[in-house]
């Protein structure tokens, strides 16, 4: 009887241990939502970052470029166009989901939608701070290998109609926790553009160094030869004042 009691006791102890171990390991794994949050951080810092963005687009054989200084903080973004000369001084201000466009020739800032074209295949919503964690819900995930890198493929659906895309397929590197590829779909389910991302810049988030986006290549799915290359260089982490995102100070 003592022998039988010992066996039962050992069995209960083992059971308790396995429950505890399961809990620990579950907490230690990064959830898909956390991975998406990390991937968002790598494309726009919530603390405040200033970066130089150079865009080159090729649309039906015609090339166009832009050089812009971009200041981002949280859900806010300010773009100031520096080159070429005939578009110098054009500005875009994003305050959460509100966008304004200002031009030296315009008397006042014009409210514009995220769908408005910026240059080439890129729209305003591609450049300003992306926040997939807030704007999209994760419908499903699956493991995937992309260019030899172990990734998780997330199927994202827009939480409401204010987002730029209705549905996104998003590949996030399991190793680096950055988004490496995206496919963007319309309401009808048709893919109309895709993008790949590189992260050769570094910034510091919560005291820890993190990869930060260095290049995005956006390709039209409708006209395969149309693409826009966006280079992000000289990222600088800094305290950005709230007044920079005030529309009263947008026009020069």
């Amino acid at each position, binding site marked *: 009887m003592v022998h039988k009691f010992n066996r039962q006791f050992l069995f209960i102890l083992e059971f308790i241990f396995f429950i505890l171990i399961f809990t620990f390991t579950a907490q230690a794994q990064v959830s898909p939502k956390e991975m998406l949050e990390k991937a968002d951080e790598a494309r726009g810092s919530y603390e405040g970052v200033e970066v130089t963005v150079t865009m080159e687009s090729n649309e039906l054989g015609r090339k166009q470029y832009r050089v812009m200084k971009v200041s981002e903080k949280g859900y806010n973004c300010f773009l100031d166009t520096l080159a070429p000369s005939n578009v*110098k001084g054009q500005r875009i201000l994003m305050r959460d989901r509100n966008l304004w466009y200002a031009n030296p020739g315009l008397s006042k800032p014009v409210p514009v939608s995220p769908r408005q074209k910026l240059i080439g295949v890129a729209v305003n919503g591609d450049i300003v701070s992306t926040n997939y964690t807030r704007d999209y819900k994760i419908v499903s995930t699956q493991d995937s290998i992309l260019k030899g890198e172990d990734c998780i493929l997330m199927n994202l659906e827009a939480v409401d109609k204010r987002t*730029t895309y209705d549905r996104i397929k998003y590949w996030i590197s399991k*190793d680096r926790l950055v988004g490496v590829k995206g496919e963007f779909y319309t309401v009808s389910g048709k893919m109309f553009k895709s993008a790949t991302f590189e992260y050769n810049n*570094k910034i510091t988030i919560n005291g820890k160094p993190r990869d930060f986006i260095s290049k995005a290549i956006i390709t039209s799915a409708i006209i395969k030869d149309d693409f826009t290359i966006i*280079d992000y260089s000289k990222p600088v982490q800094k305290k950005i004042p709230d007044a920079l995102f005030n529309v009263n100070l947008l026009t020069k």
Partner: protein
Amino acid sequence: MKKNLYKNITSMACIVMALLFAIANSTDASESLQDGTNRNQHIIASNITQQEETSGYESSTLAEEISKELFSGKENTEILMPENENKKSWQKLENYFSADLRILAYGVAQNPAESNRNPNNDFLEIPHYVTNTEIRPDFYFNSNYLDLSVKPRSTFQYNIWKEGMRDGDTDWNDDWYVNEWIARVKAWNKLFLSYGRENLQWGPSFLYSPSNPFFSDNGRSNNYMEVQGMDFARILFVPHLNWSISLIVNTDEGRNSLPNSEPFEKIYALKVDYTGINGYASLIYSRKDSSQSNKIGFFGGWTASDALLLYTESSVQNGSDAWYPVTDSSLFGASLQQVHQDDDDVTPTILVGGAYTFLNSGTLTLEYLYNGPGYDRDAANLTFSTLKKAADAYYSLMKSAESDSEKDELADSLQEYLSSQNTDPGLRFLRRNYAMLQYYQVNIRNRLAITLRWTQNIDDGSGQFFGLFSYQLGDHWDLFGSGIINAGNKNTEYGSILDYQGMLGLKLSL
């Protein structure tokens, strides 16, 4: 017994292995993964970036070259980095200055409407051809605590007349002025005090901005024509990301001209702005100094979806400062007078609008305007009947003139008489109900931008078509043009001044 001991040892071994595995995974997953990479770790303060070729496309060498050229030798002086502290003060100061230069050269061809408002083109003397060259340099000084800017302008205009008594006349004008300038002190990046000459505009509307008590022209009708600046003192307080408060005093009319040469009155305004997640709103209270008339303005916008914007802009005031026709004993039986200034009746002006952006980035905008101070049917009829009497009298006199010199004298007398009369109603829109439909699209084939607009005066049935295009010829040159076609009989708002106008020009940006 041996069998039981073996089972117990196996169980304990499983437990120990499981524990070891749990400990290994309990540390932060990303940290452990990051440490496992072979990448070099550089802290951002060194501003070092690495470029690796991993995509199928070549590096954008043009973009990189341009970026390098623009930023060569320029460090970010906002951050105190060891290498910046060694720079000379004048080198740091150089970074605060910037300048733009735009030169516009354009020609205009327009046909004055044959109407009672401008018989024989001798009332308004509209030139048939105009060539204009404008030099628009902008100079800026932007530092952490002080912003300065000045926008001097010079214009060279040549006019040719083809209608009326001035047929065959030519005229050459040049004008040199400062259209805008500003000095702004920034305190803690929350308080901004400024004084200067500005084209101070706000609001989401295209057609008209009724919430703005200073400017009747919001500059949206033609982006290439600058609105003349007025002098303002401003205090802007930004206590929070979502809120801002402005105190504004319009101290002088500056380059702007007031209707009927009425004396300038200071206007004081308090403006409160709020920006939320999906929308924004502003409230403006303004008061004229000497007449003490009050006006409350409002505008707001809502991002309904990624493609649809909805907005409104409005104002209410006691009475109206506009000039209305009044039957009296003057030469033609009526004259323009400010008869509603002291009314207690509340006069609203309300605009509602929406803009939808298609997948091709083209945007369709629809606006409706109710212009409360505008003329009703009786006032409009009295205005045009008085103008008809004046026009008939003028034609009769011209017919009876025996020589060209006598006709010239009559035309000069008419101009002299008109300059002593109030001829400007002081209204941006003459009547009360308007609608506007507009389509615009930018970056077509990376070169072209177009705007097409139809404005309808619902009250008198007249309308105006406006088209604008700009085409990039390179990094510095733009070809631009616009066209206006007015529809309506000679006793309507749009049918009474111009039949059509076309403009074509080149813009150089440096």
